[in-house]
């Protein structure tokens, strides 16, 4: 159990290590509130998808597993979309077109194929949730950084979810903004720095472990596996 959590949050973090889910990253990490709200919906979908597929895996023939997975994920997203529209309408207005786009987030299919199809119900649900949380903290961090540098605020748009709250102006009110951080390149810059930071931390941890000093040479540094 502990391992699953660790994998999702750090060791196999979907954004920092697996580099999956880049399209939502570009689209919704423009502000902290957007990033967190869509990640919450993504966590819900990943949890449900892993749960559904782990419980149905005995019925799914190996040869057609991918179409069945896609079908199940698409159906789940549609239902989450409808439920949001009906019961959390304010949030639905904010997230707008992004909820249906969870279908295209490769991280959902990737976890279903790599984990839920081979593991028990509890483990699979935990894996979906933890991978989702790993997605959330990275995308929230990127959203916060982009929003702060791009327009000098944090939590802008929170009044659309909690009408009594308002955003915090962290930089001077006449801060002119830094447009490129609000545009997709800003997401890539921030993600690149985060990956570099994570690799540096990982390399340093490796160096400190006494038994692994042979692997500690810079040339053997672990680089993220690029998929997607």
């Amino acid at each position, binding site marked *: 159990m502990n391992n699953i959590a660790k994998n999702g949050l750090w060791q196999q973090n979907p954004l920092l290590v697996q580099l999956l889910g880049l399209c939502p990253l570009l689209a919704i990490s423009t502000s902290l509130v957007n990033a967190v709200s869509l990640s919450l919906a993504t966590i819900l979908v990943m949890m449900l998808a892993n749960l559904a597929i782990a419980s149905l895996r005995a019925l799914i023939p190996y040869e057609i597993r991918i179409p069945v997975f896609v079908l199940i994920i698409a159906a789940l997203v549609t239902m989450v979309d409808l439920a949001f529209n009906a019961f959390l309408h304010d949030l639905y207005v904010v997230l707008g077109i992004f909820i249906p786009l969870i279908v295209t987030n490769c991280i959902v299919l990737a976890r279903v194929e790599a984990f839920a199809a*081979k593991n028990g119900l509890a483990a699979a649900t935990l894996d979906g949730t933890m991978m989702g949380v790993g997605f959330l903290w990275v995308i929230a961090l990127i959203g916060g950084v982009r929003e702060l540098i791009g327009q000098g605020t944090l939590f802008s748009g929170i009044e659309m979810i909690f009408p009594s709250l308002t955003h915090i102006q962290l930089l001077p009110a006449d801060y002119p903004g830094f447009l490129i951080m609000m545009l997709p390149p800003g997401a890539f810059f921030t993600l690149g720095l985060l990956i570099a930071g994570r690799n540096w931390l990982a390399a340093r941890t490796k160096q400190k472990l006494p038994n692994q000093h042979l692997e500690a040479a810079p040339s053997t540094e672990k680089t993220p596996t690029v998929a997607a």
Partner: protein
Amino acid sequence: MSELHDPADNTPQESVPERSAAYIALRTAFILLAFTLVFTALMASVYYLTAPRVTANAEAEKLRLIAVVLTPSRDGLKTFYNNHLLNDAITLPPTGALGTTENTLLYRARKNGQPVALVFEAVAPDGYAGKINLLLAVAHNGELLALRVTQHKETPGLGDYIDPKKDRNKTHPWISQFDHIGFDRVPVEKWRVKKEGGHFDQMAGATISARAVTNASGKALAWVNQHRDTLFALSSGAQYQPTATPAREHAQTLRSQP
């Protein structure tokens, strides 16, 4: 974790006894069909369970936006109109002067049966990033009551100040320049942004978004004022029929452009 299997386990588990290819194909197809049916049924039931709330939400959302353009905070005009707006609507065909390319609805606000205002959509086709959808309310005396952007793709942090939610000036957002203004105060030839010698402010560096909204609102206001009586007279649910052929009307719009 004992439940974790080796990935290599994921190969076909039992070797299927010798069957014809056709049998296997059919069997697989039926399994896929069964999954499709089950999940379609699930989606359909969620749809039917949520449909009434979704419709109610959409109506509330529409009314909320209409209320914003129709009763600007100025005079606390809560008793401004008293008919059921959403039921008193007519359909407008695609109209060049409004920039619309599909049918839109026009709502008519009345007080005790007397016409008060028209609420309708318009499209500014020339935003920085494509179309900008607008909702306008025009009073019976020809004054633009208010204007709101309902949908746009202008650059976040730069051109999106046309939407008061994104405008950093919360007390006097840019769009409030259009509250309670008519051709009596700003003549047609002045219905432009200041950069082009007109009346309306724009933000430095993002003139295109402001210009698109300003020009579209001017054209829409002129068109509605010209056809106001016809629009109020049509019975609810009717479709407005332009008197000129659409082609000629479009040509007129083009000519009237600078």
